[in-house]
């Protein structure tokens, strides 16, 4: 009995030891980033718990030397459009695949699903040339249209279809008897019912778009059109080892969103568990 209790304490020590270690590894980089962002450039090589002098001017310097507000705006509005488009087209197609009977629906769905295995990196070269022929290089169109109609959209269709399959048909039948059109059934009945799935998909799509790096890197050349990840990656080359500026920029790019997602975390984790489990 005594042995067992001792074992329990040992387990707990091990438990908290391992978890604390991993958590520290995860969090220290962020603290280090915030710490450095307030450091004086001459103190980069010195370890200071609270930077002295405390240079919040680093942030001003970043804001003055780069159009940071534009990067923010670009990232934000692209992510919003991609999310809205994905939710709308994904749920519309997901509803049709789950509830409407039409010839070839399962084959079409399988075709869509099979594209999940096509890596974006493979189709980017021809897509780049099409976009060039259409004169859409160095515009935001590819960054918005490709995810909605491509991989992100397909994922949306999949998630929404799985959800709508679980909705009982009776509701629909009643609405049909009342003379509702299919679009009204979708818009007024199905979509409001799908709030949990829509919430998950919103967070997922928004985050993916917000963090996307490969496509902006390929399609965008002008500074004022860049998104945050692209701007930060190129800023790294630009300022080289001016770490305090790079860290100020990184703090501005991450912290506001991290705070928002801190509150949406539960939904996000549940969403990952729901959709990832398939």
């Amino acid at each position, binding site marked *: 009995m005594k042995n067992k209790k001792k074992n329990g304490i040992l387990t707990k020590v091990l438990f908290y030891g391992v978890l604390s270690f991993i958590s520290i590894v995860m969090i220290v980089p962020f603290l280090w980033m915030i710490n450095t962002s307030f450091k004086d450039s001459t103190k980069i090589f010195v370890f200071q718990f609270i930077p002295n002098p405390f240079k919040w001017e680093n942030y001003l310097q970043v804001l003055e030397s780069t159009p940071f507000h534009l990067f923010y705006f670009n990232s934000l509005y692209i992510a919003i459009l991609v999310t809205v488009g994905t939710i709308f087209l994904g749920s519309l197609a997901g509803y049709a695949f789950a509830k409407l009977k039409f010839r070839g*629906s399962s084959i079409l769905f399988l075709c869509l699903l099979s594209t999940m295995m096509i890596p974006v990196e493979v189709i980017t*070269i021809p897509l780049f040339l099409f976009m060039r022929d259409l004169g859409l290089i160095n515009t935001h169109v590819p960054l918005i249209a490709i995810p909605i109609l491509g991989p992100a959209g397909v994922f949306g269709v999949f998630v929404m279809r799985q959800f709508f399959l679980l909705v009982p048909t009776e509701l629909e039948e009643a609405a049909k008897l009342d003379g509702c059109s299919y679009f009204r059934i979708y818009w007024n009945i199905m979509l409001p019912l799908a709030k949990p799935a829509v919430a998950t998909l919103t967070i997922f799509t928004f985050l993916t778009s917000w963090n996307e790096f490969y496509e902006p890197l390929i399609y965008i050349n002008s500074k004022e059109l860049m998104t945050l990840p692209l701007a930060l990656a190129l800023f790294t080359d630009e300022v080289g080892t001016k770490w305090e500026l790079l860290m100020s920029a990184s703090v501005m790019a991450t912290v506001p969103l991290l705070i928002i997602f801190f509150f949406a975390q539960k939904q996000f984790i549940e969403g990952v568990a729901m959709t990832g489990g398939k």
Partner: protein
Amino acid sequence: MEVKIETAKRPPLKGAKKRKKFIGSEAFYGYLFVSPMVIGFLVIMLFPLIYSIYMSLTDWQLLGDPNFIGTENYQRLVNDPDFWVVLKNTIIFAAGLVPINIVLALLLALLLQKNLPGIGFFRTAIFIPVMTSIVVWSIIWKYMFGTEEGFINQVLATIGIDGPAWLYDPDLAMGAVIVVSALKNVGLNMVLFLAALQQVDKNLYEASYLDGANKRRQFWHVTLPMITPTVFLTLILTIIGSMKVFGQIYVMTNGGPGNHTKVLVYYIWENAFRLFDFGYASAIALVLFVIILVFTVIQWTGRKRWVFHEE
């Protein structure tokens, strides 16, 4: 597209149901509602894929007309020493990342499964990097690994160790990138495992406990078999993801030192968008496609077997 939406909004004609016309029928709306995504599939996925096969058979450059050159790009690929280095690096990356990621995620999920105080904090801490952009995460870690200014070497200096130039050492750079990548996404796999663990029937634990199984035997004979479908899926998804690694390489090492961390997608990007050798880049991209296709097929066939076992 917008025009279609407009027509969809219009209420159906009275008596349309009886007339059995196609327009306004259930099938009509079915096709209408899926059409944007199906057109997207054709234009954005299928056509480019077929087109890139054609491109890989040409000497397509940025300027000038492409000429059909047959399998020349593929012959060049086989004889390109850089390609084999890149392929080897990608495999090393995957071979390092996948076991670390899966084992760590499983361990963390098993620990966080218990409802002990502080769980919420740990879960958030491990999940934060998942929500951070790979660019920012890599920038911070590039700095952490900095030779003189980096956190790691500063900590090492306090105990009198002269830290190495992590990202500039051919033997260490890939290891550093692997660790950074594993930490970035371990939270995602952990959440998937947690969800699977919660679905394991509690009665099984009780039954095995009554049969005299200890914790370790319970893990190997109850927990693990019950969550194999998830472990399998996660494993394949992580392998596929590691084949497509790009952002962290671009930010942290630019493929260097030398060629030591140059991976497939980086090589594709370099050939296509730095050297504008679209034909050759397409050939490399198709190699990546085939690799991923193989793993996807393994997943599909394997999954059927696991699901069958499950039921």
